[in-house]
């Protein structure tokens, strides 16, 4: 007989790749977005703030649909996986930019002043003084966001990415007994987030001690 547990787990690599891909895009684009938000040039700041607010004000599934059905059907062809990674990646960039900004703010103002007093300039002041300390504060909430993203990746089932939730839908239809399938599915998501949360807490206490305020 066809066994659904193995089938369900075959969606796991897809869930993990969507999450990792989207997080990587978000972590990369989030940095320039944060820098633009903190820029002294007002128009740039306005654009960045509008981007962050607009991205966060629209539900993730709507973004995925806009990318997959909207952009994907007219302008360029996108696979469901590509659309999910791009859509969730853009959403992550807005959220991570805010997390980075929180990290920057938590670093004492005196650090920035000290960097400029040492004539480090804005670039080296950022790379050598601000960023290393801000990362320590921003890392745990970023890990928390990654857990949220892992759960949000479930919506990519709506555009047909064969990840965990989509597999569960198929398995539920095939076996005609939905309940055990969905309970197992929920348990998988919960079990996956436990180690990340545990690691984030452990790292948090070690890193926070090293930030000057």
């Amino acid at each position: 007989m066809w066994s659904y547990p193995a089938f369900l787990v075959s969606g796991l690599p897809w869930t993990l790749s969507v999450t990792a891909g989207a997080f990587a895009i978000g972590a990369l684009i989030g940095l320039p977005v944060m820098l633009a938000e903190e820029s002294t040039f007002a128009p740039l700041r306005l654009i960045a703030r509008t981007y962050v607010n607009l991205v966060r004000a629209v539900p993730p599934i709507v973004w995925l649909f806009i990318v997959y059905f909207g952009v994907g059907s007219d302008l360029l062809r996108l696979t469901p996986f590509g659309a999910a990674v791009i859509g969730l990646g853009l959403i992550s960039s807005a959220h991570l930019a805010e997390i980075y900004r929180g990290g920057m703010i938590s670093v004492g103002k005196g650090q920035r002043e000290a960097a400029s007093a040492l004539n480090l300039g804005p670039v080296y002041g950022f790379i050598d003084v601000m960023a290393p300390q801000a990362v320590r504060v921003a890392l745990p909430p970023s890990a928390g966001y990654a857990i949220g993203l892992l759960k949000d990746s479930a919506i990519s089932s709506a555009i047909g990415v064969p990840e965990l939730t989509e597999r569960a839908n198929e398995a539920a239809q095939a076996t005609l007994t939905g309940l055990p399938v969905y309970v197992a599915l929920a348990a998988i998501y919960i079990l996956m987030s436990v180690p990340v949360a545990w690691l984030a807490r452990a790292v948090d206490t070690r890193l926070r001690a090293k930030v000057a305020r």
Partner: protein
Amino acid sequence: MSELVEEWTSFLPDLLQGLDISVEVTLLSLAIGIPCGLVLAVLVSSSSRLAKGAGLLIVEFGRGAPALVLLQLVYFGLPTTGLLLSSFVSAIAALAWNTAAYTSEIIRAGLDAVPFGQREAATAIGLNPLDALRFVLVPQGLRMAIPALVGFSIQIFQATSLCFTIALPELLSRSYGIGSQTFHYFSVLLLAGLIYAAICIPASILMKRLEHAIGHYAT
């Protein structure tokens, strides 16, 4: 440009009907979920092992599983046990569960932020534990939880878009329906996105104001 405006005016009535359902689901989920969250908060901080365990199980499941999975668990899963719910009732049941789980943590944080002296004072003037909760801790704790609760309400409103997957004719379902009839997916989905933004942006500004006004312990 005028073509787009014309198109959007023709889409709008249908989308606003969908918005009605989204808002109804949001309000009902919050109205059921937040009181349940309060009960869960009290259960989880109770000294009874059984109450604590049961509370934690409901909270961890409701928070740990994606909202989409909860929706599908209720809509596609419960019929296995013979319980058939309409998509509207399933949506409210699942989102209320999600709300209860998250808000219990928010409320618990609010209750914890009430200084310990208040608890002692309540005992000192002879209030029994239930009355201390009712007249002293909950009013002060809830007040501090308000900004976070508003923030969560925005999230639940956004989460109603997930009900697309259980065939509830809410805002996203209707825009997808229009898209599949007209093939103007981009235009209609953009309009739907703007409607969501038009509600969520003012709501988050309100939340920031509230945070400034009552984000700290007030005497």
